[in-house]
């Protein structure tokens, strides 16, 4: 994608207020992730993802000067957890989507370009992976590998590449029929060159849209697993864990004011929802631009 085209897309996004809001939200979170060490200085620079504890009392403390968002169960600072949790979310999203995309690109392209029995075999294998509800498959793998963020990422890759493989296959099948592909073949262009220079650049757009949407859902899936106690270890900065900490405080009636621990659920939830909203709006905007046939 050259610069001129990039500017054209950026201009189109800026013209629509909702698309612009999405882009700004995403950029906001990118900035938080990049500047995390300055926004929330880690007390131990070697283990920045470990949330600092300001005491050993189990009971959460409301927002104060020292802890702007308050502390949650075990005195973990919510502000620190949310800032570094942003990095965790981006790490999970980029690693999982990147790996799944590579597998999907290879499988989908080979399947569509060669067709015949290759296509048949690869698509049957894809079907088998699709025969699990996504979360069930992921849980099987995590149960076998044991809990932990890296294991969760592996599990997500193993059960997510199929989405990209199918998307790319469909889109390559469409592009393959174009006359410029036939012309390339007639000129004796080798297969890998036709794929990399002529087919993929034209078949990639649905995948870009999908991966933007997935930047919202995949980190949330990892957060959900942390919520179930299968993801990041206790004390690791992760939004899912912050939400799961709050469960013990907002439900059991504390006698008197039920809102006493509102901050344990509200701040992490707002962080999660705005993050997902940003990527979803950006995905919608990209779809409007790349695929005007789809009516939104």
């Amino acid at each position, binding site marked *: 994608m050259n610069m001129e085209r990039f500017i054209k897309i950026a201009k189109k996004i800026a013209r629509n207020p909702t698309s612009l809001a999405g882009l700004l939200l995403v950029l906001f979170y990118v900035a938080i992730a990049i500047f995390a060490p300055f926004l929330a200085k880690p007390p131990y620079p070697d283990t920045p993802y470990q949330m600092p504890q300001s005491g050993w009392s189990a009971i959460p403390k409301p927002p104060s000067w020292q802890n702007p968002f308050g502390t949650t169960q075990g005195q973990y600072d919510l502000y620190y957890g949310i800032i570094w949790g942003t990095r965790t979310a981006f790490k999970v999203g980029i690693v999982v989507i990147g790996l799944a995309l590579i597998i999907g690109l290879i499988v989908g392209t080979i399947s569509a370009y060669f067709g015949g029995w290759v296509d048949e075999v690869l698509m*049957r*294998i894809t*079907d*088998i*992976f699709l*025969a*699990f*509800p*996504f*979360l*069930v*498959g992921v*849980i*099987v*793998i*995590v*149960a*076998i*590998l*044991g*809990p932990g963020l890296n294991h969760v990422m592996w599990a997500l890759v193993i059960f997510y590449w199929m989405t990209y493989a199918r998307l790319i296959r469909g889109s390559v099948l469409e592009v393959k029929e174009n006359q410029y592909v036939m012309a390339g073949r007639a000129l004796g262009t080798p297969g890998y060159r036709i794929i990399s220079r002529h087919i993929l650049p034209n078949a990639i757009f649905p995948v870009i849209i999908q991966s933007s949407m997935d930047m*919202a859902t995949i980190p*949330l899936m990892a*957060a*959900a697993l942390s*919520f*179930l*106690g*299968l993801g990041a270890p206790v004390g690791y900065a992760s939004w*899912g864990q912050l*939400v*799961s900490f*709050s*469960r013990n405080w*907002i*439900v059991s*009636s504390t006698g008197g004011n*039920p*809102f006493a621990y509102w901050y344990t*659920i509200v701040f992490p*939830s707002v962080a*999660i*929802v705005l993050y*997902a*909203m940003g990527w*979803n*709006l950006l995905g919608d905007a990209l779809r409007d631009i790349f695929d005007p046939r*789809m*009516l*939104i």
Partner: protein
Amino acid sequence: MPVTLLGLTFLIFFFTSFLSPYQLVSAYVTSPRELQAGNVDKIIEKYGLNQNFIFRYGRWIDGLVHGNFGWSLSLNEPVSKVLEQRFPATIELTIYAIIPVIFIGIWLGVVAASHHNGVIDQVLRVVALLGYSVPAFVLGLLLLFILYGVLGWLPPGRMDQWAQMIYYAKSFHHYTGIATLDALLNGRIWVFLDILKHLIDPVLTLSFLSIAGLLRITRSSMLESLGQDYIRTARAKGLSERVVVNKHAKRNALIPATTVAGLMFIGMLGGVIITETIFNYPGIGSFAAQAAEQFDYAGVLGVAVVFGIVTVIGNLIVDISYAIIDPRVRVG
């Protein structure tokens, strides 16, 4: 379909080959008494856990076919018994959840499309965006916080203590395992209402995301069919807007919506893991989460097999119903 099922069990079992024979023992035994000191090696020998992969796979499938899913370490019961008790609860939850999804999702989608770019359309766009952006564990906890923590209305669990006393009493017949239905069949109207009350929260959590999804799909396929020539013809004939929308546009727009609704039912089966855990609902979803956390391999494998079978059957039903709704599919 049989190929998919076989491949599915093969895939699950393949993952277990990363485990040592000692870890796998639980997937084979039927009672903890078999696990007494010195016996473990005998069991490994007996079930051939130190044998090659194909042999173990055959043994395991043989067990599954005969209803032996192993021993659940997390609940101290045979997995087959756990599944038998908990599966109806999950089915009950998903059925209650899919009904509002289909009716509200399609209805809102049609409304949004027929007011394209109007105020209602804009509001519904925000609703759909929220549905996509609020994950189930956040929505569930917020509901629990407001409706139970603050207002004290809708408690977690499947039923209250007093209802449990009646439900698990000897005189109460469990015809189906679906609690609401059983309560009605036993003529226990208050138990029925109590179970229904406990279902509201999980059903809301489970259906919100899918309502948003179906709303979007229906809206875009409605917009597509409203732009067709036959709609212009219908309008030119002087038909009322209601007839145009309901009789001409909606019929065609519902075809993709139906397929998506079927797929959503399957997607929901994955969603129950989180929803059931939040609300302490005793289905196979919360069992899966618990088993995974406590290294209960037999439990996880059993749940995965059940989910896999339900998904494969569900996909088949979607394909068949697609052919019934849209005659064009049948030609090929």
